[in-house]
């Protein structure tokens, strides 16, 4: 039981992080039909802004998190304005290539700025000691670190906040409206540009939160981290049904569970842990074959 519980919380932690990143892919796709391939690298920048906040500025955890989310969010808005907006009428392919280019720029820019040596957060951030929690807690016979609890709870809160915005506020209504029929949105007196900026602000802000929490959970950061993790989160978003934020959450969690449970129990039946990724992606592929639009996806109504 304790082993299972331990793995369960590990999976929940990893899955929450994938989910936070996947949300940004899915939101941007929802409003622009653009797969923002720079999103993984934006996540990486968020993680490094955590280094900037916690080491350079010597800030504690919460201000570091907020600072990184705000700066990354603004960067996301800027990237959209400068790189994607001029291409809104251009072909899908040129937008995708531009996004890949932006990703490479961020990666190499960070490399030039910080060097290739891996970074990590200072102890006060790696070892969170939240009030009322201490640094370990026992659940179902497993001893779970405070960081894991904080990550899971924060991810849940952030998702809840986003869900509230999307479902209950006029901004969220506008985002959903754009994803349904962008022609009619300006007729409501709503500026598409404003809604798109808001979407990038939220999506990249959440990626930054994912980056900081990633650095808390797995304390080695390097400028290339965004590519691999970003791809995985993207696949999670697709499996969940790209364009639907519940799908991103479920897809991210599923990927986390598969990645943790395959190596944890696979060795009992002779599957080595190097099979983790092939099995994870194989399972996801099977889901996609069975449901091409993903778990929450519906076929998009084509508009003329």
């Amino acid at each position: 039981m304790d082993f299972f519980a331990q793995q369960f919380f590990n999976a929940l932690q990893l899955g929450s992080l994938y989910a936070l990143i996947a949300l940004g892919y899915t939101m941007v796709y929802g409003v622009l039909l653009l797969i923002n391939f720079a999103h993984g690298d934006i996540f990486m920048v968020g993680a490094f802004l955590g280094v900037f906040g916690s080491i350079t500025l010597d800030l504690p955890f919460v201000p570091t998190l907020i600072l990184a989310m705000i700066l990354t969010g603004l960067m996301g808005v800027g990237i959209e304005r400068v790189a994607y907006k001029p291409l809104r009428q251009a072909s899908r392919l040129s937008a995708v290539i531009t996004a890949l280019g932006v990703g490479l720029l961020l990666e190499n820019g960070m490399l030039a700025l910080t060097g290739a040596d891996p970074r990590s957060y200072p102890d006060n951030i790696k070892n969170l000691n939240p009030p009322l929690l201490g640094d370990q807690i026992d659940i179902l016979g497993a001893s779970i670190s405070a960081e894991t609890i904080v990550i899971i709870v924060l991810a849940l809160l952030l998702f809840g906040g986003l869900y509230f915005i999307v479902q209950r506020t006029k901004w969220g209504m506008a985002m959903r409206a754009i994803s349904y029929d962008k022609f009619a949105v300006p007729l409501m007196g709503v500026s598409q540009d404003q809604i798109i900026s808001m979407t990038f602000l939220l999506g990249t802000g959440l990626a930054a939160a994912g980056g900081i929490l990633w650095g808390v959970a797995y304390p080695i950061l390097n400028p290339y981290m965004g590519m691999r993790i970003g791809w995985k989160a993207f696949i999670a978003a697709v499996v969940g049904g790209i364009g639907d934020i519940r799908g991103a959450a479920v897809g991210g969690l599923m990927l986390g569970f598969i990645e943790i449970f395959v190596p944890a129990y696979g060795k009992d039946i002779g599957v080595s842990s190097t099979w983790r990724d092939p099995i994870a992606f194989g399972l996801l592929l099977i889901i996609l074959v069975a449901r091409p639009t993903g778990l929450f996806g519906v076929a998009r109504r084509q508009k003329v």
Partner: protein
Amino acid sequence: MLLSVRDLRVSYGNIQAVHGVSFEVEEGEIVTLIGANGAGKSTILNTIARLHPADSGEVLYQGKNIASLEAHDVVKLGLALVPEGRRIFGNLTVYENLRLAGFQLDNSKLSERIKRVYGYFPRLEERRSQLGDTLSGGEQQMLAVGRALVTGGNLMLLDEPSMGLAPILVQQIFAILREINEAGTTILLVEQNAHMALKLANRGYVLETGNITLSGSSDELAHSEEVQKAYLGR
């Protein structure tokens, strides 16, 4: 003059769809623009609403040239387009569609306007929590008009509101349009359904392949030979 369109030319690529059209709408009027499928009616309305750029010509609204404004800014001046095909957000509820139309409004103004819409169309209030996709065509048209009222109905442009609706429903909706007009909203109504449109409008223009070929009071148009032959099937 609330709206005057002067020598408007509009193209898609290098095909010109509107060849120098001029017309005017005075405050308080109901004016109709009738024409067959493909005549350029939607193109004209979409150009006025700034969804599509003009090649040349002027669109003056309240005496000001609105050519430099963006579509969402035109809406803020009280110029509302009810587009062809209604374009309801099917993934949003009836209330959310109206709420979104009030994006720029403060809460008290918003609820006042939504209340007004529910007053004209009690059906919408009954279905306030239903998704747009689940509405009938008539209800969707009511919602489309309702949204325009929420954004602010100084001048309402309607693009074939009768399309695909049973005559009885069209009569109901047109009766509401008359009420809305009497309450102070000027209406420019585009229709293929000349019969219905001329009954509602004070006067009208006939559009043929991008040119205005005829204009006059609704009575004159309804009795003119061309209109009778081409649109009224007599």
